[in-house]
């Protein structure tokens, strides 16, 4: 029961109200080379990149048939996600975020 109290109820509202965090998600960023090939464009936002990877997973049926929460990477995905051969969907936002380092002020 303990984790019920940890629920991030307030947290999620905070992101939408915080212009900096919103900007982090939707600002167009120059992509690193490997992502550029995957996305087919030189600029993208973190949010779009996430949606693109997720739709790529769905289009190519990369979800593990025995556990849908796990994705088996193909070569293309491997190249952009730290060379992992498979990953859990839970991790995806973090993996994407790695390509979008915070800008130094």
């Amino acid at each position, binding site marked *: 029961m*303990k*984790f019920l109290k*940890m*629920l*991030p*109820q307030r*947290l*999620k509202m905070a*992101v*939408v109200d915080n212009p900096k*965090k*919103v900007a982090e*998600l*939707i600002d167009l960023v120059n992509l690193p080379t490997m992502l550029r090939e995957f996305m087919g464009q030189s600029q993208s936002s973190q*949010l779009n990149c*996430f*949606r693109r990877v*997720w739709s790529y997973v769905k289009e190519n049926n990369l*979800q593990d048939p025995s556990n*849908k*929460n796990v994705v088996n990477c193909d070569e293309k995905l491997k190249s952009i996600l730290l060379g992992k051969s498979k990953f*859990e*969907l*839970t*991790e*995806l*936002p*973090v993996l994407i975020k790695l390509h979008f380092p915070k800008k130094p002020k």
Partner: protein
Amino acid sequence: MGKFPQAFRRAAAQSLLKTKTSSPSSAIQEQTPSPNLPYQPQKYSSSKNKPTKNNAPTTKPNAPSIIFDSPNLSDAKSIFNSLISSSRNTPSDPSFYNSILKSFSSVSSLQDSILFLNHMIKTHPPFSPNRYTYHTLLVQSCSSPDEQDLSNVHNVLNLMANSGFPPNEGSTDLALRTLCSCGREEQSIELVKELSEKNSPPDNYTYNFLVRHLVKNRSVSTVDCFLQDMKEFGIKPDLVTYTIMIDNVCNSKNLREATRLLGVLSEEGYKPDCYVYNTIMKGYCNLSHGSQVLEVYKKMQDEGVKPDHYTYNTLIFGLSKSGRVKEAKKYLQVMTELGHFPDAITYTSLMNGMCREGDALGALALLGEMEGKGCIPNSCTYNTLLHGLCKARLLDKGVELYEVMKKGDIKLETGSYGTLLRALCRNGKVAEAYEVFDYAIESKSLTDVAAYSTLESMLKWMRKAREQGLKV
């Protein structure tokens, strides 16, 4: 309607090409003439796609008008001159000239508008201005937001009186509404007092409009002051005024003031009607005071005021909100017996109450009952239920309902979206949560950012929980 001179057509045609030039010939554009004018040249039908200014005042459909986009007075004068000199049969209907004046006044200063009107009267005797002509000027004088005093308004009112159109109730109404829409509330109070002194007091509708506007935008003391001052002119608040004021204090949760006003209202010899009671009941609902809500209902019955549909909806909402679902259900029965058919709002309020009590299954059963009676649930109904089912850990039922919603293209609300995602993640159904995220964006239920950040924070929380060795 006059035939328009060649130059005008050219000007109109040019304005298609040049979007904005300073040359006077393109200072006017032709509005699309309506096709039912007999002597309208056919060529004009080709000009239907004219770029017309949308903020120009709307005119009667059968009056072609000139749209001015230059505030220059002499340009306007010469355009008008060429219009009347080159047309053989200019209309005698003043509304044609009113629309010209209105158009010019939308871009020019008040002084120029008055000069332009004088020019039109002088150069074109068939035109005799009517009340509406002066009302155009009155609106202009009231509509500049940064004006510090009423001198312009006074000028126009004097002009009206001197031209044989002393301001009437219509003028008062128009001036006050325009002033209020520009945020000049203090000046509208000043003006209404002046006009009341000068025998053109506001009628009930204008007065109540002003009160409604003031309670929304000014402090209670300002409104009280205004009401007191108006009593000197014999204008007293009526039942509608009191309802407006009670509604306002109820919305700001000041029920004590509402009760006081109710007393004043009775002292003044008014009998509270259904609207007054509904308003007060709503006030108690906002505070979740179930017993007070019931009391208002009982008082209505004692006073012989017949409750309407809204009364019952408010009552059921209030009781459900304050956790008295049993009673709320009882009134659903009462309501039906009295011939008021419960609607989606009634049922949704009740479902909300049941879900709060944790009786999500009961709420789901109510959905069936409601649909059985031919009442169509709305998006709020579904979202309330979805939220309730997920909270009550009935995820399977929740997912079932979500599928129904998805089929019906019903949007998710922020709350139920979050609850559903959380329930899915908690049950290890991350892939399904991703699908819900997709639907939320596809159906435009939420913005991309809102949908994503909820998902992201949910996953973050899952990872943390796992790190701490909790089984998720």
